């Protein structure tokens, strides 16, 4: 099977490739199987008598951990504290608040907490403290108590980020610009652009044109199989049934067809059924029956529908009954309704 693979990084001539080559060598260093086997055997010998201790120990640790968790969740009674101090307790538990942040506590929250008799339940104070926090900047202590994100340069590709942030037009422009390049980067950009046009921009015709541009530019591209399958789906969506049937036949006979054969057979079955060719549709559905999940399920149901359409009531009824025996069948209600109709 021909598989268009991108060139590996290590085969390129740049510092990253050199780094990867050196790392590959070093990752394999010092792995002595004989010594590892000895360590394994020694460990097994010494482990057996310790198993009971280990079990007891782990049970104790689990019980302790459970206790700690329960204790952390319990609303412990507290003495009256200011809202600011309580916030510091919640967040840091290390140092008192600076004067600056303590001065920012709203009078309302201070009144509520200080007026409570000691010991006061923690819940109202916390609520007030949280309310006070909304109106003031977070204290420095709180900021340091929260884990800091790693300060590394952003590595996400811009186009994908734009697409995720729902700025679809900017994302499309970004992908289109990147598609002008070469290699896997351009391939992915063209493919992503077509997906964006299909799903986010709602322009299936444009998406189809983009995919055709991809297939023209990269006839042996790494995403060729996926692009051809997407093209097939778009042809169906655009109502170009005859073209879709021809394309699906070509797809099935290609090397890519093996991977997604069941999905293509199901798709062909649906097209043929729509064209009132129920016998041919049945053949396609049968070819997709053994597929796991949704595809196999749909194929089994659609097979019964195709048999019913071909006026073969007896076989259609049997097919519906077989479908209802499938574990996790998704069209149970519809199948039962059809079965009841056929039994009349």
């Amino acid at each position, binding site marked *: *099977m021909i*598989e268009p*693979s*991108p060139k*590996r*990084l*290590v*085969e390129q001539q740049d*510092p*990253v490739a050199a*780094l*990867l*080559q*050196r*790392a*590959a*060598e*070093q*990752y*394999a260093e*010092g*792995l002595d*199987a*004989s010594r*590892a*086997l000895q*360590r*394994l055997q020694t*460990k097994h010998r010494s482990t057996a008598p310790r198993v009971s201790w280990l079990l007891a120990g782990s049970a104790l*640790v689990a019980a302790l*951990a459970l206790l*700690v968790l329960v204790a952390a969740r319990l609303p412990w009674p507290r003495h009256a504290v200011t809202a600011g101090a309580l916030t510091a307790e919640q967040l840091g538990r290390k140092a008192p608040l600076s004067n600056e942040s303590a001065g920012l506590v709203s009078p309302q929250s201070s009144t509520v907490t200080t007026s409570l008799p000691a010991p006061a339940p923690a819940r109202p104070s916390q609520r007030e403290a949280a309310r006070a926090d909304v109106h003031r900047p977070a204290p420095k202590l709180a900021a340091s108590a929260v884990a800091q994100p790693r300060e*590394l*340069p*952003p*590595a*996400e*590709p811009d186009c*994908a980020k734009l697409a995720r942030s729902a700025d679809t037009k900017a994302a499309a422009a970004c992908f289109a610009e990147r598609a002008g390049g070469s290699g*896997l*980067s351009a*391939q*992915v950009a063209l*493919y992503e652009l077509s997906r964006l046009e299909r799903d986010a921009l709602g322009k299936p015709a444009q998406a189809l044109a983009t995919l055709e541009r991809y297939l023209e530019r990269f006839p042996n591209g*790494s*995403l060729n*199989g*996926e*692009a051809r399958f997407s093209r097939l789906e778009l042809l169906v969506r655009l109502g170009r049934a005859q073209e879709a049937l021809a394309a699906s036949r070509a797809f099935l006979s290609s090397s890519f067809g093996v*991977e*997604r054969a069941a999905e293509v057979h199901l798709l062909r079955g649906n097209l043929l059924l729509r064209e009132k060719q129920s016998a041919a549709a049945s053949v396609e559905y049968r070819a997709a029956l053994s597929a796991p999940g949704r595809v196999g399920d749909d194929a089994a149901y659609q097979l019964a529908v195709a048999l019913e359409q071909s006026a073969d009531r007896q076989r259609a009824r049997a097919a519906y009954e077989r479908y209802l025996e499938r574990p996790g069948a998704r069209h149970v209600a519809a199948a039962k309704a059809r079965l009841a109709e056929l039994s009349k």
Partner: protein
Amino acid sequence: MKVWPGRDSKYAMMRSPVSEPGLAGPPEVVLVGRCVSGDERAWRDLYRAHYPVAGAFLRKLGVKERELDDATQEVFVQLFRALPQFRGEAQLKTWLYRLCATQARRVRRWRVVSDALRSWFGDNAPRSTLQDLSDDSVLRQVGAALERLTETDRLVFVLYELEGLSGNEISAIVGCPVATVWRKLHYARQNFRAAVEGEASS
């Protein structure tokens, strides 16, 4: 020209772990058959043949030196348990890689729990072996860049770039279409390159 260091020898070892002169059938299947029938020597041979690959792969997936023995042991326990089902349709290495990927994920999750427990009990000192503390800038740099990738992206990147597997093999291990493998690889490469270059410039 030698494009890939150690690639040929490693793959040769993976394809035929132990040569069995005089026995019919592919050596891998024969060896597995002996293992299943309870031949202790066959177990050792299988372990010796596959341990270096599993160990190096687990390291690449972020398993630390102190966790490596336990992790490889667990992988082989799983492998030996699953061997009776081995029929030779898939390569043994595909199984091994899949088991390693699952084990590496478990180790990372357990590390989060154990770190939290240690911090609760006031032990903040990192438990490092000598090798963890070694001033190995190459591994540290590559390791830090790999840490920036998502779990699946890292798996795809390591399998393709460092293990030299094909798209179809990776697709079988990761459980996604080949085209998805290439897309993931593309983004993983971008992020890896950005992380390496970012580290170099800082």
